[in-house]
């Protein structure tokens, strides 16, 4: 298991000092707790109810989106 985990989040590479953490942990680390958002991991949606169960691995590509003004 790599100690330093590399993830791509919204197109940008980011490294984390952890080898085993969940989507919920990631949301906490990014200070996004309580925000209304949707997350896709490697092209698959991670339902909010599964944030704690889905674990991330090195190289995962995530999209984290929210609602913004638009027409």
């Amino acid at each position, binding site marked *: 298991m790599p100690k330093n985990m590399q993830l791509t989040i919204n197109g940008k590479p980011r490294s984390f000092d952890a080898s085993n953490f969940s989507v919920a942990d990631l949301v906490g680390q*990014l200070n996004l707790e309580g925000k209304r958002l*949707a997350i896709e991991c490697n092209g698959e949606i991670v339902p909010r109810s599964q944030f704690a169960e889905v674990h991330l691995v090195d190289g995962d590509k995530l*999209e984290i989106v929210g*609602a913004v003004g*638009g*027409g």
Partner: protein
Amino acid sequence: MSDLLKIAGHSYRSRLLVGTGKYQDFAQTRAAIDASGAEIVTVAIRRTNIGQTAGEPSLLDFLPPDQFTYLPNTAGCYSADDAVRTLRLARELLDGHKLVKLEVLGDPNTLYPNMIETIAAAKVLVKDGFDVMVYCSDDPIIAKQLEEIGCCAVMPLASLIGSGMGILNPWNLQIIIANAQIPVLVDAGVGTASDAAIAMELGCQGVLMNTAIAAAGDPVRMAGAMKKAVEAGREAFLAGRMPKKLYSASPSSPSAGLISRT
């Protein structure tokens, strides 16, 4: 006296749908939407700003989802795949919300829709259980095909997105309306209140706009004007206009009883 807009099994009092983009700030967005009386508001789905301050306000704080019907859109998508992916994320974001606005663009300069990709996306989304309100060109054949695919409303452009050019082809819109069994709403191109009234007088079930309000000198005031225009146009449509004639030998005042010298 209920003349309700019915879309995908839900009824709405307002026939004006508004976007939430291009406003000065969220307070102005909210004030304009309140003045418009709109119940359905479009939102875009975008990457969350990572590292933003935790307390930073979001659109949803100003437009609580329990007070409005959100219509997530696929603005900025140029392929069916991107549009489908965006709306699946929107459904997750909005707790299983099914009503969506599909738009797939074909050209970044004109923002003209790509109807081939739009049709492909509509098929997938309808099959996936979405209620699809679809932005489209004003081609009557395409509009009918979108209805046959199972879209819950077709939304032909009046003119190009953000152009404010008004209704350029009322004849095509009339053909689309005459052939449709589902609501037809004009989306895009409305510039001022009279454009919205004309759309409704043609028999549209509603009008969707963003820039006409947000880019007005006084957006909140224009929002109120659009509300009145949509209502007036709808009433005029239901009332049934008088026939147009080049001239009329039937003056409004009686021909009999005129004073005379003789």
